[in-house]
């Protein structure tokens, strides 16, 4: 059993004399070919929120994994509450009161919330799992920290916000006094972020220490008491909150150069419709074809009347040539379904027209061939063959088109040549086109995908989170490519959780909420906060564009 949390014991007056909660001294960690961390020094004062910022691959997650006992440092010492520690496994870290919420959810979908929380620290009674005690304790914790969850729900039925709460409860349940949060806000909307920060402030007030990692610098400035900047694996600056004047200053420390921002330029929207989506509807419990002689509308009416859950509910919009349509929404409100329906990966009712052509019955292949490009939301899942070479990844999705295709053959030479072009034009940092995709960093992988999807002059591009987890340099490059293509007449459906990106790039923004388009907004006069209001359903109605 973990020690029960001693809430409120460490009050503000003990703070001054307390030893640092965490001291990292000269941490170095090498991976084959990469020095992820080099001589890192960080001191975290107890009862504070300490932010760590740095561009992608700077080594933040690695450092935190070291602190959490998941990886062993090659050099350096770790002190927790003044005593030196050497962790072999996370259990050692948990034992001294460290808890970590990982960058990616660490939850078992098919287990209940309760099971996920108690896992590894199970209360037992007579050899059995003591669920009653566990449930009681979880409810207590949840109430005292404002983290509402139903302990008996399956995790797979939860939304992202709930999952994040479960993750934090997991840590609190173990009585952690030092919390590591690795990019906890990446998937949250502003309201949820605010809620999370409220929780964090509460925890801080109870004397807990929080180490917080984020790419979103304004959030960092909002919550942090101290900030450490990491660049290329080393600490370049350690500042108190009041030493930082602006996000821009932090960003420059991070990248060592000017910070780009997505800014809309003059509109290039034409009056030629590139893509039209009409009454797109998707059932939750599996697709059934509409019976002959029934119109889609009446069928959908019936589905609604029957109380069937709809993942997409009568979604209609148009995108013109030269237009970027941004879709804002909290994850899990139908964005994935929408793009997969447009790509023909999942069946849906309703019409999809590319230019003049009705493509709703076409296969994914035919849709791609007729000029739809697709930057998937999860590049490792849908975008890449990690264990194949770059040029083979170039062929992916273009198997039936020049230059990759030559009759029934794959044209290896042409594919390689064209991959060279992408590597050059999109600044993909790679030793060569025969390198395996997994050897590239995330940002470079993404640039390759963008380059691939832009080849063959697509008429319409789906760009789902095109810069997620990509560092600022690569981000700016990708934005530039999107803008240039837009200027050349490309229609883009942009889905992004980064509201600045969405507002900055889009010509129009539609908000998706529970599978419906609930608002059409003008990006030129909307703030992320208002947008968040629409996304969470807090504000209803449509603004004029």
């Amino acid at each position, binding site marked *: 059993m973990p020690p029960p949390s001693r809430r409120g014991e460490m009050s503000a007056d003990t703070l001054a004399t307390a030893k640092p909660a965490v001291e990292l001294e000269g941490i170095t960690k090498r991976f084959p070919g990469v020095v992820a961390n080099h001589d890192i020094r960080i001191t975290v004062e107890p009862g504070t929120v300490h932010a760590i910022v740095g561009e992608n691959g700077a080594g933040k997650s690695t450092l935190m994994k070291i602190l959490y006992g998941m990886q062993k440092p090659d050099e350096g010492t770790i002190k927790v509450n003044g005593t030196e520690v050497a962790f072999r496994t996370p259990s050692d870290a948990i034992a001294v009161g460290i808890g970590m919420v990982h960058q990616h959810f660490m*939850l*078992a979908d098919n287990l209940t919330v309760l099971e996920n929380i108690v896992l590894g620290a*199970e209360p*037992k009674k007579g*050899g059995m799992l003591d669920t009653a005690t566990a449930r009681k304790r979880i409810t207590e914790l949840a109430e005292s920290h404002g983290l509402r969850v139903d302990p008996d729900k399956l995790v797979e039925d939860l939304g992202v916000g709930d999952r994040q709460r479960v993750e934090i409860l997991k840590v609190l349940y173990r009585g952690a006094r030092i919390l590591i949060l690795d990019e906890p806000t990446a998937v949250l909307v502003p309201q949820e972020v605010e809620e999370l920060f409220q929780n964090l402030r509460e925890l801080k007030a109870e004397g807990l220490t929080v180490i917080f990692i984020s790419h979103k610098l304004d959030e960092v400035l909002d919550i942090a008491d101290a900030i450490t900047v990491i660049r290329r694996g080393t600490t370049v600056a350690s500042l108190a909150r009041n030493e930082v004047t602006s996000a821009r200053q932090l960003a420059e420390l991070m990248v060592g150069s000017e910070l780009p921002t997505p800014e809309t330029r003059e509109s290039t929207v034409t009056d030629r419709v590139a893509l039209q989506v009409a009454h797109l509807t998707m059932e939750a419990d599996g697709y059934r074809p509409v019976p002959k002689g029934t119109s889609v509308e009446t069928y959908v009416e019936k589905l609604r009347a029957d109380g069937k859950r709809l993942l997409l509910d009568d979604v209609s919009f148009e995108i013109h040539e030269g237009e970027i349509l941004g879709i804002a929404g909290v994850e899990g409100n139908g964005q994935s379904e929408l793009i997969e329906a447009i790509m023909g990966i999942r069946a849906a009712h309703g019409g999809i027209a590319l230019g003049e052509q009705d493509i709703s019955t076409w296969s994914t292949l035919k849709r791609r061939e007729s000029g739809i490009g697709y930057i998937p939301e999860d590049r490792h899942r849908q975008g890449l063959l990690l264990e194949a070479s770059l040029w083979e990844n170039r062929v992916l999705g273009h198997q039936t088109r020049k230059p990759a295709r030559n009759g029934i053959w794959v044209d290896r030479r042409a594919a390689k040549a064209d991959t060279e072009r992408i590597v050059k034009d999109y600044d993909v940092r790679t030793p060569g086109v025969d390198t395996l995709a997994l050897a590239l960093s995330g940002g470079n992988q993404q640039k390759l995908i963008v380059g691939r999807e832009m080849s063959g002059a697509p008429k319409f591009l789906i760009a789902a989170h095109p810069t997620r987890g990509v560092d600022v340099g690569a981000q700016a490059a990708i934005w530039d490519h999107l803008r240039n293509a837009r200027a050349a007449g490309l229609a883009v459906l942009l889905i992004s959780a980064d509201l600045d990106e969405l507002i900055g790039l889009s010509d129009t923004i539609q908000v998706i909420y529970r599978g419906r388009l609930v608002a059409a907004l003008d990006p030129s006069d909307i703030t992320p906060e208002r947008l968040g209001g629409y996304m969470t359903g807090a504000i209803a109605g449509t603004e004029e564009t």
Partner: protein
Amino acid sequence: MTRFTKYHLVLVGIAVLLLLMSLVRVASGQNDITSSGTFAAALLLAVPIGLAGLGGLWAERAGVVNIGLEGMMVLGTWFAGWAGYQWGAVAALIAGLLGGALGGLIHAVATVTFGVDHIISGVAINLLGPGVTRFLSEVLYKEGTPAADAGAGITTSPAITGKTWEPSLPLLSDGPDLLGKLESTHWFLLSDLAGILGGLTRNVNILVVLAVLLLPLTFFVLWRTAFGLRLRSVGENPWAAESLGVNVYLIKYIAVVISGAFAGLGGVFLVFVSTKYVEGQTAGRGFIGLAAMIFGNWRPGGLAAGASLFGYADGLQLRSSGAVTSFFLFGAVLLLAYLIIRARRMLAPDQPAELAARSPKDYTLMAAAAAGMVVLFWLWVTVDQLPNEFVFITPHVLTLLVLLVASQRLRMPKADGVRYRRGEQH
């Protein structure tokens, strides 16, 4: 709430099944459909499959696919025979368990430590199991060895010594044998019930009792204890488990070794039935056990149902080729029931919208069901003896048919078959 209704659904399902079986028995006059003998045989044939399936369940709940069950079972049979003839039944049990566990250990080393593809490692073990045991027989049982004098040959061990206990239910299936009496009256439903109960309770080998008890025990351990939670979490998301300090490797090792031990136990059971090791006596049961487990949706109860179905069909075909033709009638009745349900739903007056929403696919489906029903009925009326080859495949065909109907509801552990390495996230 959902548990509750599911539980009731199962009960109702069993009741309907019993009723149908009884109906078919009366209509066809094939008493073996529900005779105690058939059920005793079904139990005998289902137990090794069930044990292999349990082995599969333990491994796959921890995320390791175990297609090597067959090879582990073979190891179990050999070691049981080898120890059994020298030191008796208990030694046979222990040695068989250990033999299977050894196979599991090899699988664990390959898949967990070295990250070899699970199917591949399993195939290699299936190759190794028979090879090693044959080799051992060639060395230890060859002419002139003490074992050979005790009756061993290269393909068989000497008979195991000592008797196993075969208890019956007092009164009901023993002594006055009330169930047996009831069964022999051939009353509708009552005799069927008596036959089934009698078959399952008369002269039951103690190992059968043990094997059957292992089902609830498995459920208890996996779903009610902390260890079980860790084991399942490892099969669902080992990275999450790792991050909470669960020793994923250790758990996988334990699970796969236990898996092998269960498969070995299945082998022991076969040895107990034949009183000695006989080369090739596993006859693919490891694979069938795996099928039963998938059939059972990676749950002990479902697995028991899968193994029972297979054991029942096999027992029935072994006892009575004629009774197998009753499956035609059975199928016809099922299709009829399906048709009635569909038709009623269609003709329900308060559902005009549903009427409009009927697709041609529905009609084709119903037409096919009707045609199938007619064909099956016709087959039942005209065929009174199938060629033996068609009788032999009854269990396999039934398994396929059930899978065709039920496969889409199956849900395997999420990280099943995934190669997990400490510190490397997906």
